[in-house]
């Protein structure tokens, strides 16, 4: 059974390692997932989980992933907003698979996934 003592040990271990996150600068990518009733009902939770999982797998340290409220276009949910290179990209009708593709193609390699953008739907 996991105990909170283990968490304490884990935390001590992490402190001794160099923190890569602190070097993340202005090139940070911010990703937001709509998590109001509309988003949740449309499946925003698997999308958020997929984004976090993919960013973890690829050890992306300059990406911040968080959730936000209703973005205002409920029928387009789940919506993922990516703020990168001073631009905002709105991905709509997302799924977990699409979210992984956005991380791989757009966030990592810089190729916008045009087919999922709002203008294309």
């Amino acid at each position, binding site marked *: 059974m996991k105990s909170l003592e283990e968490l304490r040990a884990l935390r001590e271990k992490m402190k001794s390692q160099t923190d890569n996150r602190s070097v993340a600068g202005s090139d940070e990518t911010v990703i937001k997932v709509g998590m109001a009733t509309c988003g949740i009902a449309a499946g925003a939770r698997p999308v958020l989980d997929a984004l976090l999982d993919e960013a*973890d797998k690829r050890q992306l340290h300059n990406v911040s992933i968080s959730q936000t409220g209703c973005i205002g276009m409920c029928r387009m949910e789940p919506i993922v907003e990516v703020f990168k290179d001073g631009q905002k990209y709105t991905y709509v009708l997302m799924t977990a698979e699409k979210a992984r593709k956005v991380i791989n193609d757009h966030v990592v390699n810089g190729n916008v996934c045009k087919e999922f953008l709002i203008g294309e739907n």
Partner: protein
Amino acid sequence: MRELALHILDITENSVSAQAKHVEISLDVDFERDRLVIAISDDGCGMDEEMVKKVCDPFTTTRKTRSVGMGLPLFKYSAESSGGSFSIRSEKGKGTRVQAEYRISHVDRMPLGDFGGVVLQLITMHPEVDFRFSVKNGERSGQLDTAELKEILGDTAALNEPAIRNFLREYIEENLVSLYGGGL
């Protein structure tokens, strides 16, 4: 919504929007009495009596982007359509308590779904809020208090470190989800 866990997430997001600092979420499973009770109470801004009366009307909301709010009406419906009941109590400036009761064996009761995942999401996405989760199944019970976690971690940013997330995922699984066996 396809899972009761998603209702829990949705209603708790309301608490966070209401500037709650402490939110208690409890899941009480009683197979003998065929009852499942979900309760969410917070110390947020609360509502006056008039608002409480109309808050389960889908055309009542505080948000500005649209004039409909489906969260509470859907939650209420999920309980009442499965032989259960729903109640909401609130006091302006004190907080709100929402409770839904289900008949476990009712054919229209939604599955609980990924409750553990919702717990993890709430903890990591709202590090500024203290959550207290408790699960009870007959004699057995389990708790998770995020104030304790934060005291051990020192700073809240650590909650989103992958290693900590993985620890929390397993901790939630073992201390909360396993109490009702996962599939409910």
